[in-house]
Structure formats: C-alpha cells, structure tokens
C-alpha cells in the first residue's frame, strides 16, 4: 500500500476528473477494503473492476456497497454516507454506527480516499472547515476517516482559484488529521508522502521543474 517502486512519468495534458479517478482505482490493491469519501472520491467506484474484488465500506454501517441505485432499486433504508441511495452486493453486511467507526478507527480498512482543502508536506490534512469567520462548522466522519485507514489518499485540485498551492508547508486551514495522508492525486501531479519527503510520481501538463517552482514544499522526483 505504501510507495512501491515508482517510476516518474509525465503527460502533456492535465488529468481530467475521470482520469484521476481511473488512476486512483487502478492503484487500489486487489481485494482491498476501501472507503470513498463524498465528492470526487465517490467517482473512483466507477472505475473499479470486478476482477479487483474491492469491497466498499460506507461509514453509516455497511460493507459490500454496490453502485448507486436507480429506478425501482431505490430504497430509503439503503444509502451511502452522502445520503445517496445505493445497492447491496452479494456478501454484504450491515452493522451499527459504533461498530462501523470501530472498523475504521481500528485500522481495518486498507484505503480511504478523501477530498481536501489543503495537505501539508508532512501529510497533515485539512478538509472539514474553512475556518472563515461566521462559518458554521460540520465535521461528520471526516476526522475518523482521515486517521482510520491503513492508507489515506487525497484527491484534489492542486491550486486554488487564485492560483495558490493546496499542497503547503503548513496548513492554514483547521486540521482534520495530523500526518495521515500518504498520497495526493491532483490534475497536475501525483505525490507520494512519506516521513516528511514529498515525492512526485507523475506530472500532467506541467514539468517537474515548473511544479517545483510553483509549490512551496521541497519535491523529490521519483526515480
């Protein structure tokens, strides 16, 4: 699950959201138990193959979650953490909220994929609260998800609308979890984080050198 031997690659164009989701999906080891956060990470499920045999966890109490339900399959008692009706796969199981979060907190899930406002080079994650004055905070399962799985991966845009890097030296947004992120997927690059070192696995529509210039953290190019 950690940084296997990675070879640096580069492509001319930035990744689309589907391309990002497809890469994340391909990186998930066969047979893994995975929680996909709300938003972009949910899209990863569309690119998992049956051969991978990945089991999806939803923190509202289910393993073996299937695709989004449509038409007659919609059942208000069967929803995911984003409150979207989903389906049940053969071999599924249901459990209560304490057992569900115990499963997560106890380190039983292999991978959790989350969105983020910011990630630090040390793997600190900010994704729950803008910290803006007057903003009403809501945390949900964000903090549990951040620190629970064996590996926490982030999918995010690398830059804010105003062009600032969301991969930062130190978080300016409120912390969700410390030192928990080990991989970041963005449209412009994919990063591996380990022991304070940020390794660039690939760049997309940008060269390693350009990236190194724009980001406020020291980058290592994968071999």
């Amino acid at each position, binding site marked *: 699950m950690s940084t296997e031997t990675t070879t640096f690659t580069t492509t001319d164009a930035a990744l689309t959201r589907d391309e990002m989701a497809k890469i994340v999906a391909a990186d998930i080891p066969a047979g893994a138990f995975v929680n996909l956060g709300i938003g972009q990470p949910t899209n990863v499920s569309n690119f998992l193959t049956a051969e991978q045999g990945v089991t999806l966890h*939803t*923190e*509202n*109490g*289910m393993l073996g979650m299937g695709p989004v339900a449509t038409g007659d399959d919609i*059942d*208000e*008692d*069967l*929803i995911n953490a984003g*409150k979207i009706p989903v389906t*049940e796969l053969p071999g599924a199981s*249901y*459990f*209560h*909220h*304490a057992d*569900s*979060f*115990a499963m*997560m*907190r106890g380190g039983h899930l292999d991978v959790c994929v989350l969105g983020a406002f910011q990630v630090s080079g040390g793997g600190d994650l900010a994704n729950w*609260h803008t910290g803006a004055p*007057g903003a*009403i*905070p*809501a*945390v*949900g*399962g*964000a*903090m*549990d998800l951040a*620190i*629970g799985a064996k590996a926490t991966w982030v999918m995010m845009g690398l830059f804010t609308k105003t062009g600032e890097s969301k991969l930062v030296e130190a978080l300016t947004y*409120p*912390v*969700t*979890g*410390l030192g928990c992120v080990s991989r970041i997927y963005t449209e412009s690059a994919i990063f591996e984080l380990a022991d304070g070192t940020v390794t660039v696995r690939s760049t997309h529509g940008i060269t390693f050198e350009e990236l190194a210039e724009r980001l406020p953290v020291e980058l290592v190019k994968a071999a």
Partner: protein
Amino acid sequence: MAPRIAATAAEAVANIHDGATVMIGGFGNAGQPMELIDALMDCGATNLTVVNNNAGQADAGLALLIKERRVAKVICSFPRQSDSWHFDEAYRAGELELELVPQGNLAERIRAAGAGIGGFFTPTGYGTMLAEGKETRVIDGKGYVLETPINADFALIKALRADELGNLVYRKTARNFGPIMATAAKQSIVQVSEIVSTGSLDPENVITPGIFVDTLVTIGGNN
C-alpha cells in the same frame, strides 16, 4: 420488564419532560423516527438537549423543533447542510448551543454511556480544534483525546420489527445509531413497522435485546 406498547406516537413520547436529553436515531432519512419526532413537537417539551447526527433539515422533524426554539443544545457531527436553515438561524442568533463531535466519537461516546465506560482515549480529533480543552495523551507514539460518555433521558429510535419483549431487528443502513442509542438512554422509545409475537425473532439475529427497550409503537407498516 416487557416494554409498554403505546397506541400512538403521542402516547409513546408523552413523558418526555422539559430539559430532557433526547437522542434521535437516523442518518439521513434512513432510520429517522419521523413520527416520534413529530409527536415530540406536539407534546410541547422544551429546553431539550438533542443528540443526533445532524441538526435538522428543511422544514420538518428536528428542524421544526429548532425553529420553535424547543432545543437548547444540539450534540451532533454534521449540523450544516444545504437545507439546515432553521439550525443556521438559531445558531447564528446565539439561541442554540452546539457541541460538535466527530461522527465516530459521537457513536463511541454513546456506546460508552450504554456500556458503563467512564471515558476513553480516541485518536480521532487529536491535534484539531475539536480537541481543544480536552485531555490528550500520547500512547505508543500516537496521539489520543479523552472523550466522555453521552447519556440521555430518552432515545427515539426507528426499527423494522419488534417482538412483544422489545427485541428489535433493523433494516439495512437504517440500523445506524439505533442499537447504541437504545443502550445509552434511560428510556428508549421505538417505532416499528410491526410487533410480532414473542418467539418469532430468531435469537441469533436480534440486534437490540429487549432489555434496552421501554416503549414500542407501531407506525405505518409498509416496510
């Protein structure tokens, strides 16, 4: 004691008093005891502390209780949503206290109350705003926050089916907070689709043993 069987939701909630702490099950619409919440609205009890994953949505259920200022405090993980306007208004007006708890800690604190645990060290929230003012400890190199049990006077729960002794089974992800809230409240009030005769539920498959159930009411019955 075999549970009291109430004829109506109004009768089921009739002894909820001003100032009570009331847990309300459900995650999204799944497992939400809507008829019991409506009855709580009608019964007039005020100055309530409500424990729920959310803080009401749109113009129904818990949102109405908040709109009418019947709720003094909410303990929840995810208050702000696109349609949480009544919560937003009461909170911004300073007329509603909010205790924001990461969802897994919320579940574990409810379980702890039911299990007679005086407090527990959880990694979730360590190093974040939500641990401010709380005791922390580093155990084997990992940071933990001390969290305390959440007890309640009443729990409002929706299950699928009960037997006459109050043994409960749930349905799919509607199980969520029900089983743990039933253990943490002095009195659990449960709405079910049907009450079956004692002996009809397989003892292996009972999710909430009847010892945790005080009042049953049959609602609808179309599940």
